[in-house]
């Protein structure tokens, strides 16, 4: 669905509404993904869908209704349903006027036609190249190649009208050998950037070099977290920067904005325009996104808001609304961690004894206020001794406060896009002292 078609639907819905305030989100997507494992494609799928979501506000009462039908009758009906729902909600005295928006410009290369037009054989070609690398090494690979194109248009009764189209291309693989495994991934907006040979080769190398893993004792270790590991760990801290979490007291720094929690080298931003991960320049209320520095040289500087929390807390609207209805509050979704100055090799060379972690698995919050999380290493965990990698180790479970980890972190000079669970992340390799492992597993 083109942006012009989405805008026509949005305007039709606004015209049909008698609510005090109305917001319409029209979205459309075409997404395809090929999975492969052990010499077959076990899932190979494509789906096309669209959605019209209407938020109606009547006397401070809010109702939200959505449909994926696009006829004029369906548009009128979904508007009527949203207004009818609003009648049953109590009035919210903090309900602000919807943002009026402002012109925005999507970052370069957010939409790549080659990705939008990728056919099943384009994905199969990349997958085949990955699988071939695994086969050459007498191992097997399981992974996926995905391409998608999506667009969103947001309009409201305050006059905001914003549209964005983007594409995504991703591939990853876990290569499994006799007693070890390795992982590699690549995220891009251009499918032509996915090099199946290179992705497969990286994973094979990790699997090969972590063969015959030895058991090491749990305890406090110096760790070097590669970007997929560090990025996933970080996602469990980001919600603390929501104005809702800060206001309600569940954030680790509630009431302590401006205080230093982390090491000097830690600077974390939310930036939709980073060249490695170009994203939507406005939020789901059509408010232009700011590019806030959440943490500057270890000091917590900023929380992210939407129109509701900007009004409630008397702060600027940073443009981080999620789609209504939203019980989670505003969220930073485009995380960028500033790189350091040392190379990854230097971080390893300067490590007397430590563990290099390729990837984490099943991280969950153990303690909200202290930001303690637990999780497992997987798919390539290595022992470092006297400044060099000496072999693979069996996987370990950690229990670690992310706040304490970042207080003892330095970053390499690299920068990689990684992701997961709705976040886009650009992060470097991280070296952290005193990372707490509590048990091991059998492999």
């Amino acid at each position, binding site marked *: 669905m083109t942006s012009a078609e989405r805008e026509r639907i949005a305007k039709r819905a606004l015209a049909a509404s008698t609510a005090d305030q109305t917001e319409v989100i029209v979205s459309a997507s075409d997404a395809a993904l090929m999975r492969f494992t052990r010499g077959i494609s076990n899932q190979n799928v494509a789906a096309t869908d669209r959605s019209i979501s209407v938020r109606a506000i009547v006397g401070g009462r809010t109702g939200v209704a959505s449909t994926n039908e696009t006829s004029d009758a369906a548009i009128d009906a979904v508007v009527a349903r949203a207004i009818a729902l609003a009648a049953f909600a*109590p009035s919210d005295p903090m309900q602000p006027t919807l943002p009026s928006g402002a012109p925005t410009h999507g970052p370069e290369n957010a939409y790549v036609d080659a990705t939008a037009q990728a056919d099943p054989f384009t994905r199969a070609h990349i997958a085949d190249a990955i699988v071939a690398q695994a086969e050459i090494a007498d191992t097997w690979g399981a992974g996926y190649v995905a391409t998608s194109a999506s667009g969103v248009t947001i309009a409201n009764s305050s006059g905001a009208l914003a549209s964005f189209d983007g594409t995504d291309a991703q591939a990853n693989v876990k290569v499994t050998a006799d007693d070890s495994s390795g992982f590699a991934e690549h995220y891009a907006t251009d499918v032509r950037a996915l090099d199946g040979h290179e992705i497969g080769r990286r994973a094979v190398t990790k699997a090969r070099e972590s063969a015959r893993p030895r058991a090491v004792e749990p305890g406090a270790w110096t760790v070097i977290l590669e970007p997929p590991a560090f990025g996933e760990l970080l996602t469990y801290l980001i919600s603390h920067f929501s104005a809702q979490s800060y206001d309600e007291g569940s954030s680790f720094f509630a009431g302590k904005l401006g205080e230093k929690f982390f090491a000097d080298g830690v600077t974390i931003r939310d930036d939709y325009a980073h060249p490695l991960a170009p994203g939507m320049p406005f939020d789901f209320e059509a408010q232009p996104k700011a590019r806030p520095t959440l943490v500057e040289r270890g000091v917590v500087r900023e929380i992210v808001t939407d129109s509701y929390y900007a009004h409630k807390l008397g702060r600027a609207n940073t443009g981080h609304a999620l789609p209504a209805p939203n019980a989670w509050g505003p969220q930073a979704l485009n995380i960028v961690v500033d790189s350091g100055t040392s190379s990854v090799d230097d971080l390893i060379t300067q490590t007397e004894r430590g563990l290099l972690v390729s990837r984490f698995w099943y991280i*969950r919050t153990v303690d909200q206020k202290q930001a303690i999380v637990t999780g497992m290493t997987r798919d390539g965990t290595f022992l470092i001794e006297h400044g060099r990698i000496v072999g693979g180790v069996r996987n370990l479970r950690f229990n670690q406060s992310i706040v304490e980890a970042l207080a003892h972190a330095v970053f390499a000079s690299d920068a990689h896009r990684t992701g997961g669970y709705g976040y886009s992340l650009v992060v470097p390799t991280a070296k952290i002292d005193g990372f707490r492992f509590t048990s091991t*597993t059998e492999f």
Partner: protein
Amino acid sequence: MEFEELGARALDTATTRGAHYADIRFERVRNERIEVRNGIVATLADSASSGYGIRALVDGAWGFAASADLTNEGIDAAAARAVAIARASASIARRPFGAPPERAYVDRFATPVATDPATISLGDRVALLLEAEKLAHASPHIAVARAWIDLWLTDKFFVSSIGSKIEQQIRQSGSGLQAMAVGDGDVQTRTFPGDVGLYQSGGWEIVEAARLRENAARIGEEATALLSAPQCPSGTYDVILGGSQVSLQIHESCGHPAELDRVLGWEANFSGTSFLELDQLDALRYGSPLVTIVIDNTMPHGMATCGYDDEGTRSGTSDIVRDGVLRGYEMSNDTARSIGRESNACVRAQSWEYVPMIRMCNLSLLPGTTPFEHLFDDVRDGVYMESNRSWSIDDRRLNFQFGCEIAWEVKNGKRGRMLKNPTYAGMTPAFWNSCDAIADADSWFAWGTPNCGKGEPMQTGRTTQAAAPARFRNVSVGVGYGD
């Protein structure tokens, strides 16, 4: 059914273009969610979605295409796309593995419903939540109280090129409440019922059964009391788990590793593989002889209860663990065939736009014979834990660590003072082999999970793990805090 002609057209298009087999699943989905948060209706949402997914089999390889375009042209395009995708699958396959189902069914199924939610006014639904949420503010420490209702209604129409024609109407409902207390450097949360609310198949009667109003004040009081409760100790203790926590333990340490697609490596890069490898079937002592875990996709109130799965296989019952020994897997047609068995109807898709895949269905631990209150007998030094708040397990489902919202110490057979931040950890087979008592049928309950994640693209599944409280000996407790 309005989709009959379109279905026939899709199958004709797919087979004309070269599919050896094809099926199409139309769905019309209606979801309502209401969430009250601190006196405000934060969510009052009604969503509707219609569309279809087509599976096509070409040269032993599958393709799947989904669309919301219900025109003839839309059907033709989606069917052609499914066939093209299947050809792309075949192009990288080193071996054929897919085959058509062997049996066709013509049938209908509808979830038994005592009270249609539509007969309860929206005003009454909102009022229930506002009242319960208000009661949960039991002290000034309660910074956030929430209460919610979810109602799902799904109409499905499945037809296949071997002659299946299955109509189903699935209704699932749920509700819950949560109180979050904030103290000096501490946050404590209590959720009711269980750890996500009460979710089952059925109508408004499921929401009423949760008894939110009757329990809201207690939940708020417990969250507040946890702020000043002592820390759960670290060490080796006997552990008694409440029913909802046993349910989650089954889910994570038996339900997922017994998925045959995972065993075969189909989820290796994401959800992981399994320690329940094929050579362990009929051999592995998974748990103590008390432990019997079964699939029953016909059970009343099961979230996965239906007449047929999304491959068109009839629901039934089967063993996963019988008297402690591994006896089976959750299977699809293709995976079952690969080990010489028949599918046990464990294939589901989140909705029309997702491909059907093996999902944990109604997989439950059968009750024991010990009355709940006697689980505490013979425990000299132990901990009783309820309501999950943290769960993590390695990618072969061996090393696990779970945390609960609340616990009580157990001394000399008696439940004592409240403890906060309880956690426990272990290795799956050793843990289930340490189970020496399971509560009887009086405390066995169909705990539903509305949000189980698996697959790429990620799909959310609704599943039930019925369970009763159970006792485990010599468990590592208190991991995550302290050393």
